């Protein structure tokens, strides 16, 4: 075999830039033989429609998804994970609605569970939010390229992100099932632990909580809850905000007797602000559509408003290394569906 020709590669990469097909980084130009290798990994026919956006009159086929997955740098064996991640996102009401066009510029959070993590090399431990791992990096990027190229949602045109968020199209994490004291998000949803599956939602942002400061589980929970209850993130009466706990925090909580469900209940009880605090930031009033605004008169200043009322609003995931007690608060754009999609279709 002759050595790869960098000049040909450059020419092909520049061609894709000129066509407007990239997210700003170089893409792998897709050839028919390579796309066929991807298509061979799914039982779905290439012309199968796997997503529609009614408001734009746009749709995505399996073949378009394969071309974009190639361009993102995926290997053929990743393609079933891309399809599962895509299906999980199309199950998200906000993503089907105006999410991709939104001024919020939300990013998908993709969570991979089950044996496929080990088989394909998805990172679920140190540096799980990236970069450095091809499956994590390219599966997330493939979703972004599908949205751009197949749905035609390009920045500054149909995509109207005011600022967007750091990490858009790059947040794909394996759940650290091996070091989690609890059932995984897939098992929580009723799948068995031998089934590989992908869950996904749209995020507004992530924010770390570094608490290596106490052995009291309720103090750790209170620290997390304080960050979860940021008023800047609050738009409506209620919100959906989860945590990606590091193994150390999760294990500390489990050792103190907290089940995952107990953790969610604790957050539902404690994530909120008093009306006085909300008034300070102009978010103490509510419109008839449930949107917050500055109320005309101050009432019930000591009343504590909880921002969540159901466990579905609080996804709890475990990922990262066990080397420090720092976790991530993840702000859901719509509502976490809690519905993982099995890799390779329904078992």
């Amino acid at each position: 075999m002759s050595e790869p020709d960098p000049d040909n590669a450059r020419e092909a990469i520049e061609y894709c830039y000129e066509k407007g097909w990239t997210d700003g980084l170089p893409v792998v130009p897709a050839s028919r033989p390579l796309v066929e290798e991807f298509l061979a990994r799914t039982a779905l026919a290439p012309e199968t429609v796997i997503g529609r956006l009614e408001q734009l009159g746009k749709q995505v086929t399996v073949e378009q998804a394969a071309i974009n997955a190639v361009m993102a740098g995926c290997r053929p064996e990743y393609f079933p994970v891309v399809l599962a991640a895509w299906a999980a996102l199309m199950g998200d009401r906000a993503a089907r609605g105006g999410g991709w066009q939104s001024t919020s510029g939300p990013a998908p959070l993709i969570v991979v569970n089950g044996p496929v993590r080990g088989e394909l090399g998805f990172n679920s431990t140190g540096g799980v939010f990236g970069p450095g791992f091809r499956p994590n990096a390219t599966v997330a990027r493939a979703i972004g390229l599908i949205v751009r190229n197949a749905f035609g949602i390009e920045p500054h045109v149909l995509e109207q992100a005011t600022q967007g968020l750091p990490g858009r199209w790059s947040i794909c994490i394996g759940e650290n099932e091996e070091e989690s004291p609890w059932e995984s998000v897939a098992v929580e949803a009723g799948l068995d632990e031998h089934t590989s599956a992908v869950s996904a939602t749209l995020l507004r942002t992530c924010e770390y909580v570094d608490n290596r400061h106490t052995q009291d589980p309720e103090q750790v929970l209170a620290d997390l809850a304080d960050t979860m209850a940021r008023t800047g993130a609050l738009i409506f009466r209620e919100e959906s905000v989860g945590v990606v706990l590091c193994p150390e925090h999760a294990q500390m909580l489990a050792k103190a007797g907290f089940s995952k469900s107990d953790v969610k209940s604790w957050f539902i009880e404690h994530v909120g602000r008093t009306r006085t605090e909300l008034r300070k930031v102009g978010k103490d009033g509510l419109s008839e559509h449930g949107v917050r605004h500055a109320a005309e008169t101050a009432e019930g200043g000591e009343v504590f408003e909880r921002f969540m009322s159901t466990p579905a609003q609080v996804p709890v995931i475990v990922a990262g290394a066990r080397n420090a007690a720092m976790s991530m608060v993840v702000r859901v754009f719509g509502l976490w569906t809690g519905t993982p999609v099995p890799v390779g279709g329904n078992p």
Partner: protein
Amino acid sequence: MVNAILDPTGGVRVAAAKAVLTPRRAQLKGATVALLENTKQNAALFLDELGKLLKQRYGVSATVARTKKSFAQPIPADQLEELAATCDAVITGVGDCGSCSASAVADGVAFERRGIPAAVICSDAFVVTANAMAELRDAKGYHFATTAHPVAVLTPDQVRKRAEEVLQEVVAILTARS
């Protein structure tokens, strides 16, 4: 043999320029005008104020206030039919987000093609995305009214002033033939 580089977009669709505006424009005197607000902050007040001005100055006899429940999506078919069957013209808005400005334009085009003159109001920060939606609906160059961004934070008095400012353009869209 050299392999071609495959197109990830499904092929570039050339926007057709099909007729948009219904030829029969609105006669405002004695008309019933639908005010379709999209739940965005201040949208209902903005349209309500326009309705009052149309009654006072242009002889509109009645307004029908409706809410579009899902601002990012096209108007549901049954709501479009209801308004088309009962009203002579429609005003909709306010498009002041990425998805709702685009979908407001889609609704305006849909009403016109259903035979009902329609005026869409978008904030001027969303002109590009609103125009892109018009192209997707084969309505390149579709004219909508704009108001300065932002709208959501305005006081009621400021909203009334905005309605006053955009009134003539709304009337022109509803009554002019091109």
